[in-house]
C-alpha cells in the first residue's frame, strides 16, 4: 500500500499505521477452523480501506479482530499481531479498546442502546460510560453530530428514525468516543439507496475532516469506488488482492470469487469480451454523475 506509507521529511522512519494486522490467524472459541488464515493489512490515519469478498470469506470476523473485539470480548484464538496505533489488542480490555477502535454493524437497530429518549443522549451514551465531565460530553456529542451533519436529529427519538438515519446515529455515538480507527461491517446492506448515499457521504466527510482510519466492508463496490483509497479482496480467510481501489475493483479475480464489480467495470469488461468499443472516459463520467442524497428527503419510518 504505497500511499499509506508517508515518508517524513525529518526522519526517515514511516509513521506507525493507525491499524496493522501482521500474520493474523483467528478461530472462534470452541471451533477448530481458522476463519482468518494469514492476514496482513495496514491502514494509515485518514485513509479508507475497502474490504470486498464473497459471503463467508471471513470479512465480518476480520472486522471483529481489527476492532479488538475478538478475542477481548468474544474469546477465540488469535495468532499474529493486531496493532491499533502501535498497541496490541491482546493487552487491552473492551472499554479501552472502544477508545482505540469503533465498530459499526449491518443492523441499524441492534446498535442503538434503546435507553435514550433523544438522539443527543444516545450519542452521549459512550462518553457517559467513561465517566467524562458533562462539558466534555456536550462537546463530543456536538462534534460527532456535526461531523456527520445530523445536528437536526438531536432532539428526535432514536427508535423512530429511518434505517439510514439510525445508522448515522449509531455511527455518531461511536465517533463520540474519538477512536482513531473505525471499522464498518456492511453498514449500508440493510439500507435503501437514499440511506446508502447518506452513510457513504457521511463517511467520506468523516475521513476528510478527522484523521480517522476507516475500514469498510461492502458488497456495493460502487460505493467503495468513490470512498476508498485502497481495497483488499478477502476470500477463505486470506487477502487475495490488495492495492489501489481502481486496480482491485477492475481485477478479474473479483468476478471469479463472486464479488460484483462496480457497474462501470462490469460494462467495460462485457464490452471487451464482446469485442465492442466502449469509451472508458464516458462510462466513468456517466457512472459518476449520480443523484446526491438529500438528508431532508429521507423519510422517517412511520
Amino acid at each position, binding site marked *: 500500500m504505497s500511499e499509506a506509507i508517508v515518508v517524513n521529511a525529518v526522519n526517515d522512519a514511516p509513521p506507525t499505521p493507525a491499524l496493522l494486522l501482521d500474520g493474523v490467524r483467528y478461530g472462534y472459541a470452541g471451533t477448530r477452523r481458522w476463519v482468518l488464515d494469514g492476514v496482513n493489512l495496514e491502514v494509515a490515519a485518514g485513509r479508507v480501506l475497502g474490504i470486498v469478498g*464473497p*459471503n*463467508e470469506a471471513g470479512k465480518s470476523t476480520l472486522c471483529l479482530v481489527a476492532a479488538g473485539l475478538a478475542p477481548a470480548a468474544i474469546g477465540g484464538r488469535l495468532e499474529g499481531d493486531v496493532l491499533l496505533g502501535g498497541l496490541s489488542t491482546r493487552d487491552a480490555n473492551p472499554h479501552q479498546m472502544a477508545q482505540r477502535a469503533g465498530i459499526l454493524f*449491518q443492523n441499524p437497530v441492534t446498535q442503538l442502546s434503546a435507553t435514550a429518549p433523544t438522539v443527543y443522549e444516545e450519542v452521549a451514551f459512550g462518553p457517559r460510560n467513561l465517566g467524562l465531565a458533562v462539558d466534555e460530553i456536550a462537546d463530543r456529542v456536538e462534534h460527532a453530530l456535526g461531523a456527520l451533519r445530523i445536528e437536526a436529529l438531536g432532539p428526535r427519538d432514536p427508535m423512530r428514525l*429511518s434505517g439510514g438515519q439510525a445508522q448515522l446515529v449509531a455511527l455518531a455515538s461511536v465517533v463520540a468516543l474519538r477512536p482513531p480507527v473505525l471499522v464498518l461491517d*456492511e453498514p449500508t*446492506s*440493510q439500507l*435503501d*439507496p*437514499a440511506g446508502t448515499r447518506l452513510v457513504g457521504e457521511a463517511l467520506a466527510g468523516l475521513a476528510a475532516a478527522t484523521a480517522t482510519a476507516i475500514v469498510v466492508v461492502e*458488497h456495493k463496490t460502487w460505493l467503495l469506488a468513490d470512498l476508498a483509497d485502497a481495497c483488499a479482496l478477502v476470500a477463505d480467510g486470506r487477502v487475495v488482492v490488495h492495492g489501489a481501489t481502481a486496480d482491485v475493483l477492475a481485477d478479474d479475480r473479483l*468476478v471469479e470469487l*463472486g*464479488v*460484483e464489480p462496480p*457497474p*462501470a467495470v*462490469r*460494462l467495460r469488461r*462485457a*464490452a471487451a469480451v*464482446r469485442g*465492442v*468499443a*466502449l469509451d472508458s472516459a*464516458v*462510462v466513468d463520467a*456517466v*457512472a459518476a*454523475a*449520480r*443523484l446526491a442524497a438529500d438528508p431532508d*428527503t429521507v*423519510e422517517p*419510518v*412511520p
Partner: protein
Amino acid sequence: MTAVARLEGVGFVYPDGTRALAGVALELREGERVGIVGQNGSGKSTLVRQLNGLLRPTEGRVTLFGRDTAGVHVAELARTVGLAFQNPDRQIFAASVRSEVAFGARNLGRRGAELDRAVQAALEAVGLEGEAATNPYDLGYSRRKLLALASILAMETPVVVLDEPTTGQDARGVERIQRIVGSLGETGRTVITISHDMRFVAESFQRVIVMRAGRVILDGPPVTVFAAEHAGALASTFLEAPLAARLGERLGLGTTPSESALLDALAAR
C-alpha cells in the same frame, strides 16, 4: 395471457389516517415478471400485501383468478400468492433447513412424496440441498434469506412475490435469484419483486411499475420506463435508471436498459 390478479381502483388508508395507496388499477398476467420500484414509503409493500390479504383495500377491490379476495382468509389466499419477506428472521423457527422449507407446503396440505419432491426442488433451486439437516441459525444471513425464499418456492403458488430478494447477497447469490426468477417465469408462474436494485429489475423483469406516494406513476417494459423522457419522473422519486440505460442515452443509442441491449446496440452501430 390470462389475468391472474386485478387491482381495481384500489386505495388503502392505515387506521391512523395515513394514506398508503390511491387509485391503483393494475392487471397482472400469467407468466409475467414484474418489478415494483419506488422510494421507501411509496406504497410498494402495501401494494403487494393487498394480493395475499395481509392488508385489505379500503377502496376498490382485488381479484385473484377472477375471484374477489374479500372475505377469504390469508391462509387460503396463500395457496395462490406466496410472499417471501425481506427479513428471513421474521419467519424462521424450525430446527432444520428441511423442516423450515416444508412448513408452508405442509400448511397447504402437501404430504408424503409430493411434499418431499417440492421441498427437494426448492432446496436445489436455492443451493441449500447440502444443508438440509443444518440448523437455520448456523447459516449466515444471506443464506437464511435464500432459505426463506425456498420455503415459499416449495409452496408452488401460481404467484410468487419477492420483497428485496437481493439485499445482502453477493454476486453468486444475485445470479441464483435471477435464475430462479427466470425459471419461475418459464413455468408460467407470475413473479413480482420489490427491489431497489435497478440493474436486477432491468435485466430480469419484463415489466417495471414505478410508485410514488401511493400511486403508480410509470408502468411498462424496462425499455419504456428507463427511456430518457421519463428520467424526470424517475428523478422525482429519487430513482435513476441503470448505468446501461444512462450510457446508451448518452451515446445516442436510444434506450438500452440492460447490458446486452447496450452491447447489441453498440455492435450494430
